[in-house]
């Protein structure tokens, strides 16, 4: 079995057993989305206006909750050595970790987003683009998060540092992702922001694993 698949299989097994990685972001989203009508008033028009941006911001914040878990557990119990002390390229193992994280934390966000959309009166025409933009964007969250996680994995209280490091990396994702949904809700085309978002994803896949691998190696020195 290729090491890549072995690592994904292991992480998915762990994730399905722990479950917190899966439901924490969703519960968070439900709790926070409730605050918007409570704070702004339940007017459908107001909510519909802010819905695209709010859904995206909620997805971003919810992702932040689980980003440190990409590497922290492996560092704490020493299993990180299993994919560092091997001739199998570390960037590929990092890619496997990112894929597992997205499957456990990001994909549920994509599938759950219509529910948040309904709660915020998102126009019905926007749901397709909403899910597509999140489908492209949430993996980028995991990619950017992997750098922060690899860097802070040896720190006891690395949560705030991870957020400080990852937020500037996620800003472009938010810009393009939210714009896509805003545009489609206004009746315009969302293709340009979606394409730009896809470009970011491709850039992430090719570059980020090397940066995260470097951070892991520096941390183990």
């Amino acid at each position, binding site marked *: 079995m290729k090491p890549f698949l072995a690592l994904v299989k292991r992480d998915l097994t762990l994730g399905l057993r722990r479950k917190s990685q899966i439901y924490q972001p969703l519960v968070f989203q439900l709790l926070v989305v409730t605050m918007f009508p409570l704070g702004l008033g339940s007017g459908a028009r107001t909510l519909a206006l802010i819905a695209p941006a709010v859904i995206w911001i909620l997805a971003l914040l919810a992702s932040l909750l689980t980003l440190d878990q990409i590497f922290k557990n492996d560092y704490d119990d020493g299993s990180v050595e299993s994919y560092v002390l091997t001739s199998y390229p570390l960037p590929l193992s990092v890619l496997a970790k990112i894929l597992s994280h997205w499957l456990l934390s990001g994909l549920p966000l994509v599938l759950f987003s219509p529910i948040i959309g309904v709660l915020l009166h998102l126009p019905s025409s926007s749901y397709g683009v909403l899910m597509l933009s999140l489908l492209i964007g949430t993996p980028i969250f995991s990619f950017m998060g992997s*750098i922060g996680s690899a*860097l*802070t994995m040896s*720190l006891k209280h*690395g949560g705030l*540092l991870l957020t*400080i*490091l990852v*937020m*500037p*990396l996620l*800003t*472009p994702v938010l*810009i*393009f992702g939210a*714009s896509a949904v805003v*545009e489609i809700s206004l009746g315009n085309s969302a293709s340009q922001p979606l394409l*730009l978002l896809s470009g*970011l994803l491709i*850039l992430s896949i090719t*570059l980020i694993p090397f*940066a995260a691998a*470097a*951070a892991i190696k*520096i*941390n183990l*020195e």
Partner: protein
Amino acid sequence: MHKQRTNALVRFYHKLGSPPSFYRISGYFLKWLLLLAIGLTTWGLYDGLVLAPADYQQGDSFRIIYVHVPAAWMSMFIYAVMGVCGVIALIWRMKIAEAVMLASAPIGAWFTVIALVTGSLWGKPMWGTWWEWDARMTSELILLFLYIGIMATYSAFSEDTRKAARMAALIAIVGVFNVVIIHYSVQWWSSIHQGSTVSLTGKQNITWDMLRPLLFMAFATKFYYGYSMLKRARIYLLETESNKRWVQDIIMEKKS
């Protein structure tokens, strides 16, 4: 003949890269850098605040660009320097590169803060609000977060300064890529949202009398950066090499 020349080049590279030589050589420059910085700043501010003609649209309030623009330029220039140093520090493990990078971070952060504050002060008479999310100011704010990130990374690894420096270098390099992406994405975002705001440095025909003080201030800030950065870098080297012979020698010299 050829052998002699290559040897001299190799020796020069090694000399520059060794902490004791860097410490000694930079010591000579400090005084001059400070004098030039003070001199050019004084002249530049006088030129800009007094000599330059008032703008027919904005009156005298435009004069804040003589602080705002050089500060903004430095915030980006210093970040680029840190990126280059980060690459050198990470790949070739040069102590000097680490020192220059870490010394530059707080200076760059302060220039960013100055750029943001002066930009805000300029904005009040222009738009009536203390803050507007136009492309440049938004990018500048995110740049501040990047600076904070580098400094926070360094201080988080408090037990191992070598590891801290290397992590900071990695973040600096990632940040350089990020700065480029942020610049273009914020510009795109700003253009599609077509804010009612006018860009801070809109297209104006700038005369030589208005431009000249700007150039003076640009040079002044560079010299100030050189002075401040070298000072901090020297302290960093003394601290991190404190167990080496050359540092002990310097301490002995100072005592006598």
